């Protein structure tokens, strides 16, 4: 295909050419960044929790007992829950991954350092490794005889004595790697206050935080053997087979109510619910972005159809002359297709620059990462495709112009 006549024609229609190019450039920029944003959301929503998500249900309740009775009541409740048919393991926790409400501690590597090294999630509770289905990669699980009542620990800390410390604990692999890169974390000490020291006895592969906003620190977690007692911030976790979850949830709620009819269950839900609630904003935003991208493509396509039709109508006479001089239908078809390809290519080149600019702007305003180069070809391919699709109809109509038109005055 000879390009020169096409370029010569385009040079005579500068305004329309620029309009089309700008439209395509803007679409290209929006599509590149839009697809990237969607991919980011999807990746964020895919963040691993490290737990057996589809096998867990959670029950949370209002405070049921005066502080002194909390521990005994929690043990009674756990026994009640363990007796429900279909329950494989029962645990208790002050938070769950992606649960939203979080409990975090300032981790220090020496009791005298003035500022914290980092902040990590503190999981307090019963039987968490087994109930959550965590994978131990080093060391051992916490033993039942290592658990202490929270009030005892608080009293010791308030009196300033270091009695009972260091307490054993489990850390996530991400936290261990961050605190002691390339060294064995087992047996090492950390401090959460100048007197409260903890010794690492086990490492689990993954355990996400309850408020995992930042991917870099989302997996910094510790499990500490404290009896917390039945309280509003604690929840019971039950592990069961996926198909038994609803039945176990109903049976467990009923059993707890039977044990104490005045109690208020504030949450009774599957873990899948917790996760989808946490990521619902990302889900909504991704959906919105996808619809904007589709709408942009649609409008751009419609614009190309409109202008191509106009050009075809305007050049009917020339097309007739070319046909009369021996051009085949395929030549006319290819002429319009090539013309569209050229315009879209100019637009894409402009669009890449714009896409990069928008990406820089987004990086500044919304702390997003830089647009990876891999997304530029995506925008280009999509726009070439849309352009060819949109021009096909008008180009076919042009190819159908009979040579006899040349002899008529339009």
């Amino acid at each position, binding site marked *: 295909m000879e390009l020169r006549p096409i370029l010569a024609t385009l040079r005579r229609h500068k305004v*329309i050419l620029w309009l089309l190019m700008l439209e395509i450039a803007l679409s290209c920029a929006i599509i590149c960044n839009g697809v990237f944003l969607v991919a980011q959301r999807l990746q964020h929503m895919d963040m691993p929790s490290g737990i057996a998500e589809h096998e867990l249900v959670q029950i949370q309740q209002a405070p049921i007992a005066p502080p002194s009775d909390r521990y005994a009541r929690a043990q009674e409740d756990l026994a009640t829950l363990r007796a429900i048919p279909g329950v494989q393991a029962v645990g208790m926790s002050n938070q769950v991954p992606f649960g939203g409400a979080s409990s975090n501690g300032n981790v220090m590597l020496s009791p005298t350092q003035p500022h914290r090294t980092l902040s990590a999630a503190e999981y307090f509770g019963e039987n968490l490794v087994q109930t959550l289905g965590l994978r131990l990669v080093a060391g051992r699980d916490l033993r039942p005889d290592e658990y202490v009542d929270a009030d005892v620990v608080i009293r010791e800390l308030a009196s300033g004595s270091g009695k009972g410390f260091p307490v054993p604990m489990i850390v996530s692999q991400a936290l261990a790697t961050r605190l002691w890169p390339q060294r064995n974390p087992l047996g090492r000490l950390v401090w959460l*206050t100048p007197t409260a020291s903890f010794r690492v006895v086990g490492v689990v592969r993954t355990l996400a935080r309850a408020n995992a906003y930042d991917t870099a620190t989302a997996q910094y977690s510790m499990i500490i053997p404290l009896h917390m007692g039945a309280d509003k911030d604690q929840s019971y976790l039950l592990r069961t087979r996926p198909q038994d979850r609803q039945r176990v949830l109903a049976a467990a709620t009923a059993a707890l109510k039977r044990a104490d009819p005045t109690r208020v269950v504030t949450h009774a839900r599957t873990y899948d619910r917790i996760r989808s609630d946490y990521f619902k904003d990302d889900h909504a935003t991704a959906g919105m972005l996808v619809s904007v991208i589709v709408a*942009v493509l649609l409008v751009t396509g419609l614009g190309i159809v409109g*202008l191509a039709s106009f050009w075809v109508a305007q050049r009917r006479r020339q097309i007739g002359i070319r046909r009369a001089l021996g051009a085949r239908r395929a030549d006319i078809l290819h002429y319009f297709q090539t013309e569209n390809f050229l315009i879209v290519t100019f637009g894409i080149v402009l669009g890449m620059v714009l896409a990069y600019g928008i990406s820089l702007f987004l990086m500044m305003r919304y702390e997003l990462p830089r647009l990876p180069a891999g997304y530029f070809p995506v925008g280009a391919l999509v726009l070439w495709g849309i352009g060819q699709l949109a021009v096909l109809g008008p180009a076919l109509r042009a190819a159908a112009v009979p040579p006899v038109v040349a002899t008529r005055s339009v």
Partner: protein
Amino acid sequence: MFGYYFNLALRSLKRNRTLTLLMVLAIAVGIGACMTTLTVVHLLSGDPLPGKSSVLFFPQVDPENPVVGGATEPRPAMDYRSAMDLWSAHRADRQAIITSSPVKVRLPDSSQPPLMPSMLSTSADFFPMFDVPFQYGSGWSADDDAHHARVAVISADLNQKLFGGANSVGRILRVRDADMRIVGVLKPWRPSPLFYDPWSQNFSKSEDVFAPFTSSMEINKGNFQAYTCWHVPPSMGDLQNADCVWVWLWVELDSPAKVRDYARFVDDYANTQKSLGRFAVGSEHARLRDLMAWLTYRGQVPGDVRLQAWLASAFLAICLFNAVGLLLAKFLRRSGEIGVRRALGASRGAIFAQCLVEAGLIGLLGGFFGWLLTLVGLWLVRHQPVDYAHLAHLDAAMFTVTFVLAVGTSLLAGLIPALRASRVVPAWQLKAL
């Protein structure tokens, strides 16, 4: 003249229906997307208390000791002692000390299962300060605050649940283990954003039970929640003597002089506490923002919504380019007709005006369909799982903006094509006929 142009425009639009439809559709989709997101931004960035917001202030000091490395702003709440000190000084025209906690509520003589709503613990000034509307009864008095009175105000929602919406003033409510006399029932009240609560989701609903701060400290002892603690509390949930932030303050200051005085008072307080060794930082971390400044600092419009607004504007720009191209095609196609009109004596201005009338008409049509699409878009937003969903309605202002934007953009889009059409040289066109 305008009538004639309007008539011409109508004829022209009818002549090439596909092209007309494409243009109207392009503008409608652009306007629809743009107005949906702009309406959401407009609603989310609104003033929750118009006329009052400029006299309401949120004082902050930083009791955290030692401070977390690198912190430049204080936490959005204070420890009990600092908040009590500032509140009981009574240096403002009105002042409310506030904290919020979940609490078990039921009727003493009912078999209904207990509920677990949020309780707002505050002082008497809260209700007049924030213009809280009452259905029955009223708030409590400063005397009730001082005497730890067992009185409560409940929301319309809770009143509906417990009493079927009847006047429940004088009835008794069992809050945890204490009996409280209801003195007031609110009208449905849902300030958006929930400006007075610095921790809440911005657009969540307000509390169901309101009780005097002094008495709720006794009633719900051990169940308050800390925003954060820098030392382990002496016993779990007992925060009054703990190094935790969980209480905050709002004050009303009616004149700029009072604002200056109060700001100095807060600074002095922070500095005194620092010199006493209780605070690590003094007035560097003391703040006194007014309501709107506080909301801006807090970032009340979610980042996602801003992103959507940017995207929608870019989308409108694409639709605009599209409309320019299509209008250009449409006008230049009529070069012959324009040539005849020019030859018969029409001035360039007349052609220009005629083209703009046509562009405006397209804008009007696009605006109408765009308005319908906006309604659909807002309906979709209302069905999204986001906490501001209930707000998404088109108000009169945004309805007007829809049409102004539609006609404005299409006139803008019509400028270049109209200019080109008015420069058509009549002789060439006549020759070609």
